[in-house]
């Protein structure tokens, strides 16, 4: 595979250049654009696996976070155009989250540096040559005489070990630091079991899941894998489903997907855990019971604000289900008592007998040093102990709290080097930038856990003139000499192969290497599960302290989209609404309605938050899912650098936080803030109109008991004593006899004759959907959907063909608030209202049951959208396509889908390009399309496998089974438009008596 990437290299770059000017193979639609002279640029040498017009897939590994998901990179004519999960990969098993898919917009980001740069005396940047850059770097390192520090943000990998070894060879000091590296858990495990590694949590096996602040569906741990597990256990299957509880001060997406959100003050989660442990232990006669006596439910009730019965009930439910699973940690619970919390949860798992069942040690890698070391490192920088510092794949000056004076300490280092490909906050403070290559441009690997080694290979000529830092250090070693001279591999690729040879074996290496590349790495069967011996260390609880005298606890939480901020420069992630608040392009502070009423602010008003460590101004979002005593803010925005999309956008709560206390972790949740009104207002770019269902049955639910009985939603509403519609008097009943049937008949008049044509349909299982919005990003990537920006979102002109609708239930008069999520795309109605009203047949019904939308026929009367009951049609109000993809972002565009000009209506097509593609292939191979052969982008991406697409007429097709499910219903049945999308009702852990069917209807 090295062959074609090198062999055809130069020419491919040529090719890219030309394509770039020709609009990335998806030129704007419209006759005129085709008339100008276009050039055809041939390859110099045609590579074997590049067939023009046919995508080539390469296996690689996602480096957006340290989960290390495996990806397949879809390339066309040498350009990666889509990322999809590697089905063989144990972590993500073929799916991928939004952040992972948006990796392409990192690869093609318009703000990537064009080459190495050095800061001159004037403080501005000079572009320099690579040889020069490496020479300068080498000279400085050599001169540093070991007063040389390295901050490496890249996960465990051949490269990281190379860097570590190399650093010590040149006498330097290295710390491997990832932003959210779960230190409290490691430290707690140290105390509980005397080992600092992290276990794998088996969500799929757990029958009862309790999370203490850990947002396992968002950023904590390995979200894609955990979501898959969660869907497997918590999704309704064979008459049952797991129960999930979330304990914490804010209703995160994870909490919203749990069956219960137990709202407790920040810092008291540990008490709940201990009390639960006490109940279970004493009921089981476990020895731990004695030591836990002080934490009996009635003793902790007052502090947690929960009743003793409640805690006892939680404990009994937890004990009753076996195996169960309790998890803790994450930024959401990272207060000064975080370690004790994790210890308490370890104990809880222990007494419940989950160790070795759902808490599996042995598979995870040894610790990365984490925050403690980086804190120490900056301390030493402050003392001037370092001459040179190298920052790789990390942006500490942004991700570390402003209160910690890290910037000042960093500035004390005379010569600072960054490998950032995009000028971020840290790079801006450096003296030399050696822009690294993106994960899909370089040779590399990543080892998220023992037995899993994901490989990366260059699938595209470097978009910008970067160089992998691995090659840099190897080249530098030559000049540095000394111990470094041992690192004499000609290139990092050679070094990597050398290292891999040790695992793959020298004989027949080329073949095994090629095979491994094709697979995407080595995925050994998961390591044997160890059951560690508890040290029996006593568990204690001390109320965590908070900085500042403010009235409100500030709760920063990692944004699903931006993670620690690395996602903030990618339009897809910025425009993909936050799953909970549905806000795009902005940061906000979440405030409970009561709090808002007390200090008299409305949504969008700007308040000033001040803590001992700093101030910031943020716009208010009123959210019943956060405790009245708490204000929550997402991390990730508020960059002062980092490219056109991120720079100056929003604020970050890090501005209000201080550094750590030297306990080895960063207490995010340790600050109290006071709120002051500013009188300013900035409209919130929300995409949800009315967040309540008004009893319209958009997202229908049913109690587990009824679902298990195989009732339909309708039957379950009736059974729960909540009638579908009011009963009609007898005479009316008579009059209405067969009326519904007649209506449906009516709508079938003029339908296509039953032909051998397939009928495409979709089914969505709402008991699996978590609202994570990975499908939305997939849709953007597959269908060349333009991002429109904050200003246009104010007018609700976002183009997301697929949207996740989020509705609130309850939340009023003290009732627990709940969220419902549902993906809504074009329903491809059988009796589509959009079709008859189009004067030019731009919207019409295809013989295979789709709502065709012929963009180039559309004149833009927009009647179709008015008449669409689901409002899933999107109009090009302005020349969005001209601004959405500044070069080279346009290189990502999918050549199989045309981009739409302004003045044209567009919508979900069920990925018709994939349908037609499969049909064409089938014709060429003299066969018919196989069942399940066609997968839409959304269904492919969904980590919880909630979407199924297929041919309704083919009994062999999965989708037929799904549509036959008793839970199935179609949206807005009253309109009788006969959608091709069937939703399977969400199943609730609720007693039929308390079933709020009325609200959903």
């Amino acid at each position, binding site marked *: 595979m090295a062959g074609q990437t090198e062999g055809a290299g*130069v*020419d491919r770059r*040529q090719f890219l250049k*030309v394509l770039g000017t020709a*609009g990335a193979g*998806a*030129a*704007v*639609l*419209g*006759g005129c*654009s*085709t*008339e100008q*002279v*276009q*050039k*055809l*640029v*041939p*390859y*110099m*040498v*045609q590579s074997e696996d590049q*067939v*023009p*017009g*046919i995508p080539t897939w390469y296996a690689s590994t996602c480096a957006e976070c340290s989960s290390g998901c495996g990806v397949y990179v879809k390339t066309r004519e040498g350009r990666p155009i889509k990322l999809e999960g590697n089905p063989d990969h144990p972590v993500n098993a073929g799916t991928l989250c939004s952040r992972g898919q948006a990796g392409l917009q990192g690869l093609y980001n318009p703000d990537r540096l064009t080459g190495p740069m050095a800061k001159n005396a004037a403080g501005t940047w000079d572009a320099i040559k690579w040889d020069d850059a490496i020479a300068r770097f080498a000279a400085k390192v050599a001169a540093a005489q070991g007063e040389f520090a390295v901050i490496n943000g890249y996960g465990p990998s051949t490269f990281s070990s190379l860097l570590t070894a190399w650093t010590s060879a040149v006498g330097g000091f290295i710390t491997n630091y990832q932003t959210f590296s779960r230190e409290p858990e490691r430290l707690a495990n140290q105390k509980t079991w005397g080992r600092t590694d992290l276990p794998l949590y088996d969500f799929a096996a757990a029958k009862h899941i309790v999370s203490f602040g850990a947002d396992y569906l968002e950023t904590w741990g390995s979200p894609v894998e955990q979501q898959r597990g969660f869907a497997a256990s918590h999704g309704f299957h064979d008459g049952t489903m797991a129960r999930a509880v979330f304990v914490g001060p804010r209703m995160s997406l994870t909490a919203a997907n749990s069956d219960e959100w137990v709202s407790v003050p920040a810092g008291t989660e540990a008490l709940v855990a201990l009390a639960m442990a006490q109940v279970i232990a004493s009921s089981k006669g476990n020895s731990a019971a004695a030591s836990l006596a002080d934490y009996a439910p009635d003793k902790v009730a007052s502090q947690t604000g929960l009743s003793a019965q409640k805690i006892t009930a939680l404990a009994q439910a937890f004990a009753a289900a076996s195996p169960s699973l309790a998890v803790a940690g994450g930024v959401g619970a990272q207060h000064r008592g975080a370690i004790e919390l994790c210890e308490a949860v370890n104990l809880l798992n222990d007494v419940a007998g989950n160790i070795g069942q759902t808490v599996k040690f042995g598979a995870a890698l040894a610790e990365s040093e984490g925050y403690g070391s980086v804190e120490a490192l900056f301390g030493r920088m402050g003392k001037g102990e370092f001459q040179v510092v190298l920052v790789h794949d990390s942006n500490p000056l942004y991700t570390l709290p402003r209160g910690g004076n890290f910037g000042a300490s960093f500035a004390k280092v005379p010569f600072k080097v960054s490998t950032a490909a995009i000028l971020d906050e840290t790079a801006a403070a450096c003296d030399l930038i050696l822009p690294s290559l993106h994960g899909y441009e370089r040779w590399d690997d990543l080892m998220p856990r023992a037995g899993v080694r994901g490989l990366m290979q260059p699938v595209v000529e470097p978009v910008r003139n970067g160089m992998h830092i691995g090659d840099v250090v190897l080249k530098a070693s030559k000049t540095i000499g000394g111990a470094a001279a041992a690192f004499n591999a000609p290139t990092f690729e050679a070094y990597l192969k050398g290292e891999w040879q040790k695992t793959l074996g020298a004989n027949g290496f080329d073949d095994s290497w090629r095979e491994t590349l094709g697979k995407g790495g080595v995925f050994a069967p998961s390591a044997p599960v160890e059951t560690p011996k508890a040290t029996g260390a006593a568990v204690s609880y001390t109320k965590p302290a908070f900085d500042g005298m403010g009235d409100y606890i500030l709760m920063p939480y990692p944004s699903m989209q931006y993670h620690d901020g690395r996602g903030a420069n990618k339009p897809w992630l910025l425009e993909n609404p936050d799953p909970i608040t549905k806000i795009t392009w902005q940061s906000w502070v979440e405030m409970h309605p009561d709090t808002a009423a007390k200090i008299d602010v409305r949504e969008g008003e700007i308040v000033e938050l001040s803590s001992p460590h700093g101030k910031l101004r943020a716009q208010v979002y009123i959210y019943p899912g956060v405790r009245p005593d708490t204000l929550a803010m997402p991390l990730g925005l508020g960059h002062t650098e980092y490219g056109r999309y991120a720079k100056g956008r929003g604020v970050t709560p890090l501005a209000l936080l201080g550094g750590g206390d030297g306990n080895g972790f960063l207490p995010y949740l340790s600050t109290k803030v006071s709120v002051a009104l500013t009188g300013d207002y900035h409209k919130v770019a929300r995409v949800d109109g009315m967040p309540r269902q008004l009893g319209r049955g958009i997202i229908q639910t049913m109690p587990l008991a009824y679902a298990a009985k195989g009732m339909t939603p309708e039957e379950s509403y009736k059974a729960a004593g909540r009638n579908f519609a009011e009963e009609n008097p007898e005479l009316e009943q008579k009059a209405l006899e067969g009326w519904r049937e007649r209506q449906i008949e009516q709508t079938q008049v003029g339908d296509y004759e039953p032909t051998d044509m397939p009928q495409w349909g979709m089914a969505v299982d709402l008991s699996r959907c978590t609202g994570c919005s990975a499908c939305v990003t997939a849709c953007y990537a597959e269908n060349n959907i333009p991002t429109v920006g904050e200003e246009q979102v104010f007018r609700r002109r976002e183009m997301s063909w697929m949207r996740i609708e989020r509705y609130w239930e309850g939340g009023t008069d003290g009732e627990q608030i709940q969220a419902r999520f549902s993906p809504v795309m074009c329903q491809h109605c059988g009796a589509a209202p959009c079709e008859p009203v189009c004067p030019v*047949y731009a919207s*019409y019904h*295809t*013989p295979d049951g*789709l709502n*065709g939308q*012929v*963009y*180039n*026929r559309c004149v833009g009367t927009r009647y179709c959208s008015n008449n669409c009951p689901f409002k899933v049609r999107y109009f090009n109000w302005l020349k969005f396509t001209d601004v959405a993809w500044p070069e080279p972002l346009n290189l990502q565009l999918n050549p*199989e*889908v*045309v*981009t739409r000009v302004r003045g044209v209506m567009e919508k979900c*097509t069920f990925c*018709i*390009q994939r349908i*037609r593609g499969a049909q*064409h292939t089938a*014709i*060429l191979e003299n066969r018919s399309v196989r069942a399940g052969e066609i997968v839409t982008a959304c269904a492919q991406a969904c980590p919880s496998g909630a979407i199924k697409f297929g041919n309704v007429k083919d009994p062999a097709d999965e989708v037929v089974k799904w549509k036959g499910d008793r839970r199935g219903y179609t949206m807005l049945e009253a309109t009788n438009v006969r959608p091709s999308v069937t939703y399977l009702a969400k199943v609730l852990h609720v007693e039929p008596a308390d079933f709020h069917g009325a609200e959903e209807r």
Partner: protein
Amino acid sequence: MRKRLFLGLGVLAIAAVATLTLFRRGSAQQTTAGKPVVAAVDPASLKGPRQPIFFRHDIHVGRNQMQCQYCHYTVGVSNEPGIPSMQTCMGCHFLYVTGSTPQNKAEIAKLNVAWQSKTPVQWVRVHTLARHVHFPHSLHIKALGPQACATCHGNVARMAQVFKVNNVNNMGFCINCHIERKVSRDCSQCHF
């Protein structure tokens, strides 16, 4: 006396040249019947856009009877017909096929230069299909056979310089064929 001799020689020479040229033209005219012209042609005088290299489809396809698929190698398997890589050209022109006429020699020399300097020749596109139409070449080849290229592209075997015979962006042109052959006219077959 000497004068006469020179004069005679001159006359002879002129006559010889004249007859030769006459003969050549004659032969050229003869060949036009079956075989295409291989005489020197001024590309500027021909229809169609002028290419960086005066590539003679009439010679390659007409005289040498090469299959379209030899160069447009993906036409049978992909939506895209495929433009031959420089390697494909050099495959024949590297050593032995260096051209019969001075003009051809010159043009082939250009090819060599391009190959040496690793700068691909930027051909001027003749047929550009509007981006909002999807035309799977492979399906049409499968349905109409490998000789069907002429249906849209005209008989390139007789084109010294390729020019546009049909406006492929004229939807009527497509539809007529689809009606004659009773194939689907569903919009979403081509427009998505």
